[in-house]
């Protein structure tokens, strides 16, 4: 037994080290791809900004100053060297440090995705469990239909419907921004996550305002992700309820409610950890569209803006941040899985 534990411990460590080591080539390939794709696309940030009103000679002069006329390989070397030093640079079109975009807009995205994930888990788990438990009843049909429809609907479409229903027709909730203009102007920012900032300052009026602004975007993004959870949890519940240990529990005379709640549901939820990790990338992708729909000042909102302006530095920086976050979450999920399930090893 002791020997077995030692072997497991060693292989777990190897597994963790291997996973971390794989991150390096993964990020390197991504950096290179983003760099090349941005250069392959026609146009450059200087022409996009000035092409409508200054002579070509001035544009050339500015391109030279920005180093955009250097050979591609030199630009690539400069870019990698900057990243290695942790310097993501300053945006070309509006001189904004990337660190500011990451902390300011990244915080807004974090706030949105966190609450969206809460919505996804709450809706996904409840509807999935109920549908699985009451298989082939009207509740199950409703749950399955709901899961398929919200997963199939584009996130911006759900967003528009929510805006029209709760913002325009019923007038219950605001349809845009992270907070109302006055709240935004007066709220002291400490973390850039307005929900936390409002609590930090004990500004309950701002907290109420921020919460109201969060509801529609978080519900929209959360519901799309919930569609995946519903289907997965339902299947797991159905499978778990057929397992031998459930039969055994029933045979021992344990009340059905306890069998379902204490044994079947808990075990059915274990695979969800993996799916949460996998869906994080989906959530970030959805956040770009949700942010556009709700004028939410997140990092995806900025990405769309800078892509249009061909701002190499900004786009490269934002995509690297996205990638690093996804890699970090995947890594965390892998670690959790490896701890939970000893069968997972390289």
């Amino acid at each position, binding site marked *: 037994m002791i020997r077995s534990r030692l072997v497991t411990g060693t292989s777990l460590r190897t597994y963790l080290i291997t996973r971390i080591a794989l991150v390096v080539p993964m990020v390197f390939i991504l950096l290179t791809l983003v760099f090349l794709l941005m250069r392959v696309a026609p146009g450059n940030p200087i022409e996009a900004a000035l092409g409508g009103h200054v002579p070509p000679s001035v544009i050339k002069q500015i391109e030279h100053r920005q180093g955009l006329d250097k050979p591609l390989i030199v630009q690539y070397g400069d870019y990698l060297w900057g990243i290695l030093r942790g310097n993501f640079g300053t945006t070309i079109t509006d001189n904004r440090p990337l660190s500011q975009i990451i902390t300011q807009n990244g915080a807004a995205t974090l706030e949105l995705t966190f609450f969206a994930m809460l919505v996804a888990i709450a809706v996904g788990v409840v509807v999935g469990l109920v549908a699985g438990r009451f298989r082939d009843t009207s509740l199950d049909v409703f749950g399955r239909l709901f899961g398929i429809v919200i997963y199939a609907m584009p996130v911006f479409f759900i967003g528009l419907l929510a805006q029209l229903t709760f913002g325009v027709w019923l007038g219950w909730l605001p349809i845009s*921004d*992270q907070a109302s203009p006055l709240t*935004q102007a007066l709220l002291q920012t400490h973390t850039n996550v307005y929900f936390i900032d409002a609590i930090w300052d004990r500004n309950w009026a701002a907290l109420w305002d921020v919460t109201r602004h969060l509801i529609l975007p978080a519900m929209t993004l959360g519901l799309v992700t919930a569609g995946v959870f519903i289907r997965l949890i339902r299947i797991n519940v159905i499978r778990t309820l057929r397992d031998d240990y459930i039969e055994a529990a029933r045979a021992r005379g344990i009340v059905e409610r306890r069998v379902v709640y204490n044994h079947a549901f808990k075990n059915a939820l274990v695979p969800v950890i993996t799916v949460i990790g996998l869906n994080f990338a989906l959530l970030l992708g959805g956040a770009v569209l949700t942010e556009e729909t709700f004028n939410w000042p997140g990092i995806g909102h900025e990405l769309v803006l800078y892509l249009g302006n061909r701002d190499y530095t900004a786009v490269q920086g934002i995509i690297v941040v996205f990638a690093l976050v996804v890699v970090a979450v995947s890594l965390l999920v892998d670690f959790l899985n490896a701890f939970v399930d000893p069968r997972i090893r390289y």
Partner: protein
Amino acid sequence: MAKRRFRWLLAGSAVAVLAVTAALAATAYGGSKANNKIVVDGTTGTVVNIDPANEYDYDSFTVDLPIFQGLYGFPSGAKLAPVLATGCSHTKNLKTWTCHLRHGVKFSNGDSMTSADVKYSFDRVQAIKGDQGIWTLLTYLKSTTVSGPYTVVFHLTAPDSVWPYILSTNAGFVVDKNTFPADKILANTDTAHMIGTGPYALTKFTAGQQVVLTPNTHYWGAKPKNGGVIIDYYSKSSTMKLDLQQGHIDMAFQTFTPTEISSLKKTKGVKVHSAPGVNIRYLVFNVTRPPFNNINVRRAIAYLMPRQAIAGRVWHHTVKPLYSMVPAGLPGHTNAYKTLYGAKPNLAKAKAAMKAAKVKKPFPITLWYTPSHYGDVSADEYIEIQRALNASKLFKVTLKSAEWAQYSSALGKVYGAFQLGWFPDYPDADDYTVSFYQPKSFYNNGYANGKMNKLIAKERSSTGTKRIKYLHAMQALAAKTLPTIPYWQGDMIAAGRSNVSGIPSTLDATYYMRFWLISKS
């Protein structure tokens, strides 16, 4: 039983907490008298740089205008007038301009403004040569000298009759020499150092989200009619429209689609204000490459341009047909294209031009436009032009489009005929003529006309009615030689809630949003 009672108690407490929070929210943000006077404006624009030394786009200018001032400006209406100067005089050759400054002007931090600040501001723009290119407006400025604390002398390399107009642009905005670095651009978020002499001070800047302007307590002029301004930035005009209709913002300016404007006009509690503006759209030809090097082909298109259909069907009459690159309302404007090609499409004359062109009919041509930079309506606009040209059976038009980043790098280098828009550096006819007709212009269309070059030189070195005469001649020559075909001039449109007043007082040919004239009841 006890368990159930506990649950009810819990639910009741939750409702009570929510109600108290809602009440607190209402009193904290709705009750303050000072906050009620703050005007919240929505826009779909993007701020690039607030520092005047590197600001060369309209959206950033709208933020600069309430914070900074130049020696000249447009304080009310479209008439150029001294602002920080009491007046400027020039030598006979228009190469030396001496300006006398207003006394008692203070920056928003309380520093007094003197000629040293003015010299510092101009030297700074020329030293930094910012990436946005605003320094190109000071190309003719050789040096700036001072003569005492209230006199500044500008020495130019060439005669420049429009120098006072240059002084009204942000290349000439005066900044505090004690707060702005001499050799680098100030970050937009550095509100502590972003100090000007205008009616407002910048107190908060959140990129892509919000600009907060508070009244400048040291302001030398009339106090703003509101308690401050918040500019809220939107990525989509549809969301901005809904927010205006719901009353989440007080007004919105820049930029709604024509259908959104029509919808807002029908909304209870919202008023749409408009006045003739100076924003224009035009078609550019590369005059050196086939097929548009054939002047008769260009003439046939000029005869067929469906201005009325574009203004009515596409823009719902929020723009007006334009018959010169110089918009109507600016001194020096003439309807040169109307004189030569008529007010409405003329098929018979177009046929005659095509006969003279000696090309097969229908003649295949390609027109380029950019689908989002000038708004989604661009596609409809070019479909209308295509429809009109094809209906004549003289042309077979292919439409092509490219996003702005690609489009702006191609223009005349790649495209034969392409859409462009223009918003002026300064609202004067000079900016609508010299920019387009000088050799090696920004759009690379190959246009170079000796007669035009002479007219430009004469216009730049004369003043008054003589200068206007040259401007008229330039427009007539352009209509004849057709490097471009102007087709519409946009109105300046702003929409506000019915409790917002003063918006019409800022709508004029300058296209300036003077927030200090707007109040809220």
